[in-house]
């Protein structure tokens, strides 16, 4: 191999800048490897997506339970409860599992669930609801977890 093909940089400032460049790339790659898998074209992790889907299922179950009880007709007098029933029990869900619309739908479901739980637990029936383990679990999962 001719001498001039050896890697022999001699400018200390250039070396420092090159080291910085490569160290930055290494930091970036390490960070990326440490991250959970991502949905193509989105910055939402699969963990987060799983959590949101669980929240949607919990909201649907909660709505079924609330509307099927004797309290159902009372709750249905409020417009917001009727809207929730219409939206999550009687309307078709977005089909694609990874589209931005589906993600937006799931995030909205999570917000609706949190609002519904807050309203339920601050109502006069809050103490009654807390007697049931399922409601305590929901409270812990969605209202007390940061």
């Amino acid at each position: 191999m001719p001498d001039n093909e050896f890697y022999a940089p001699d400018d200390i400032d250039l070396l420092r800048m090159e080291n910085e460049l490569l160290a930055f790339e290494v930091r970036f790659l390490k960070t990326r490897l440490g991250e959970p898998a991502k949905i193509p074209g989105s910055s939402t992790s699969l963990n987060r997506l799983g959590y949101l889907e669980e929240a949607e299922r919990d909201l649907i179950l909660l709505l079924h339970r609330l509307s099927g009880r004797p309290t159902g007709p009372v709750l249905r007098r409020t417009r917001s409860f009727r809207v929730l029933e219409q939206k999550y029990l009687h309307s078709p869900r977005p089909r694609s599992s990874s589209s931005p619309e589906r993600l937006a739908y799931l995030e909205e479901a999570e917000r609706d669930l949190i609002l519904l739980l807050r309203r339920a637990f601050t109502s006069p029936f809050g103490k009654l609801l807390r007697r049931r383990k399922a409601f305590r679990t929901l409270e812990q999962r969605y209202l007390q977890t940061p």
Partner: protein
Amino acid sequence: MNMPRKETAVNPRPVIYAGRFADEVPTAKLPGDCEVLDDWSVLPFRLAEALEDATALVVLDLFSFPFESITEEQRDVPLVVVLPSDFDAPFLNTVFGEPLFGTLGPLDRVATADPALWEGLRRGYRWTDGQRIELDSDRPVEAAARVLARLEEEAAGTVLDKAVYRVRAGALGPQFVAACGVRAEDVPFDALEVGVGSGRWASSFDPAATRFAGLGFTEGLVEAAIADFPGGRFDLIGDGFAFPHADESFDLAFAVSVLHHQPAASKKTLISEMWRVARPGGRLMFLEDFVAGDLEHVVSIQKFVDLVLEATAGRVILEHFEALRYPRDPYFRGGLISLSKVGTPQTW
């Protein structure tokens, strides 16, 4: 040690492959320092020797040149193909198609005397008018003389090393695709190149799905870009680097080898303007040198990142980074940084 030429004026030393027409192309009749090869001169060692310091390879006899046997390094020599005019576009497309025509980039040239043949091929391969060398005659000696005159004209200006272009294109291509993402067919992709030059990167985007805009620093280059990409919008950068575009107009704003020519204050203004015109969730991309060489205003990656954070008030997320080493350069000198803009759209 040989360093990449990148963007410099060079002394042209083209190699002409005349093949079966070698007798019709006497070296004495050609201007400048060029070498003529016949169809026996394309044995690997002979071709390697001839292309060692060549600034262009002009192929006058397409049918006898062994394109399949040239090496990766030899592909970094800009190629000029002279189209034989006795054949129509579908025939040449069938014979050479993607393996040859599909590999011709913005730094390669296509010479032909037949406008119909040019039109028949250029659309399919996204060649620009700037890549065409118009010939007056098909005679090999006249074609060679015309091509050499054009190469000499181009060499008087700044010429980008094709090897450098290849490395940059290899890094940018996947990031352009990632920036485009998955979108409905009827939603156009809005891309802005800052420091657009003659619009070289515009051909990386599908013109049917992209609204390409470019901002240039010199009038001549902006005019060249308008001529080559009539579907795009090209403007001169205004005083104080203010962009003539509304806020949140683009899905991608990128600059290739532009900011390292600018002092820190100008870098900051340009980054800030790029951020302003990018849509929330859209991408900002910079391919620059981060290791100082002959250029005065190169800053280290850390300083550049600090500038970006300052210019955007930290409202960006790092999506991709890779260091680039250009052929024959002892250092990893370049870097491609891709960021997405964080924020809430002003209008829905």
